[in-house]
């Protein structure tokens, strides 16, 4: 497998973790009670750590002298490869929980595969991440259940979140040429395997939580070639502001 291919693969993963961590951090000091505020920042910190490690490796493989910060702070919208799901806003607690829950399932599966690869750096990152994501999944499942099977209001809110975020799930098991190369090298499972896994997990868990699985009418696509929702622009404007405003400064 070419180094540039592996680099792009790490960048995709790292970008998703970064944007997710960013959305998480927006919830700081806004939690429904203080203990949950800490829990959410915990998830954010883990994801930020994973993103930093992955982006660092991506630039190392790329060999163009860029740094992880260059990737995070100097790329524009069309050069980011995070899943569109990760950039969806924290409309309410239910939206945040559903978004993170689905991504936790995805990341868990991805890291599970990477733990076994020959690449020491990547398997090292995955070994740590797999434990972190297992806890994320546990925490988020706890909330999906409680919101689904809580009050009428919570049930309605989380059902809405599931319905509206559903169209972003398709990207998680989509395959392009790069994915096929990565799979051939044993670094990822096939799109079909991922789809089956996600759908089975999500279906059974939503049902257990008294929620309905939406009927797929349309699945969005494009983040692998830098097509995003309108949210990413705002996220980057905020995140990159200082580095863009003071391009020569070191922080």
């Amino acid at each position: 497998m070419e180094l540039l291919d592996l680099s792009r693969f790490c960048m995709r993963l790292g970008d998703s973790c970064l944007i997710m961590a960013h959305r998480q951090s927006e919830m700081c000091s806004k939690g429904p009670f203080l203990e949950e505020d800490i829990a959410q920042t915990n998830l954010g910190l883990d994801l930020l750590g994973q993103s930093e490690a992955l982006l660092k490796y991506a630039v190392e493989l790329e060999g163009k002298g860029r740094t992880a910060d260059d990737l995070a702070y100097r790329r524009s919208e069309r050069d980011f490869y995070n899943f569109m799901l990760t950039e969806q806003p924290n409309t309410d607690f239910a939206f945040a929980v559903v978004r993170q829950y689905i991504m936790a399932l995805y990341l868990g599966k991805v890291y599970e595969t990477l733990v076994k690869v020959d690449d020491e750096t990547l398997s090292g990152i995955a070994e740590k991440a797999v434990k972190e994501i297992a806890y994320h999944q546990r925490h988020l499942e706890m909330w999906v259940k409680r919101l689904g099977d809580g009050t009428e209001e919570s049930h309605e809110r989380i059902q809405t979140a599931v319905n509206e975020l559903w169209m972003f799930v398709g990207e998680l098991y989509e395959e392009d040429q790069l994915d096929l190369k990565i799979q051939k090298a044993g670094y990822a499972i096939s799109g079909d395997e991922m789809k089956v896994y996600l759908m089975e997990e999500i279906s059974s868990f939503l049902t257990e939580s008294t929620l309905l699985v939406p009927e797929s009418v349309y699945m969005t696509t494009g983040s692998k070639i830098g097509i995003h929702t309108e949210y990413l622009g705002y996220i980057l404007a905020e995140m990159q502001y200082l580095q863009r405003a003071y391009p020569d400064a070191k922080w």
Partner: protein
Amino acid sequence: MSEVKDTQGQLWEVFIQTKKGLPFKHAGSVHAFDKEMAIQNARDLYTRRGEGRGMWVIPANAIVAVDPSDDESFFDPSDDKVYRHPTFYELPDGIKNM
């Protein structure tokens, strides 16, 4: 279902074991709405710097405490029952390590 009250959940006391073999020590309390949430919240609050290998959480209202004003009668009587202390026993000379 009857109207649900808005609260901060219940109070749970947290006990941490820092290393296997050591006793569980009281670390403080957390709020949570059920057992699963209580252990997670306790883990997030009290073991972020690797302070724990084992943890117990207990609803605060399940704990039985001894009232300090009962202290004397509750704790003191053992002071004059010397036979629990090893020095009470006379051992023949030559017995070491007992």
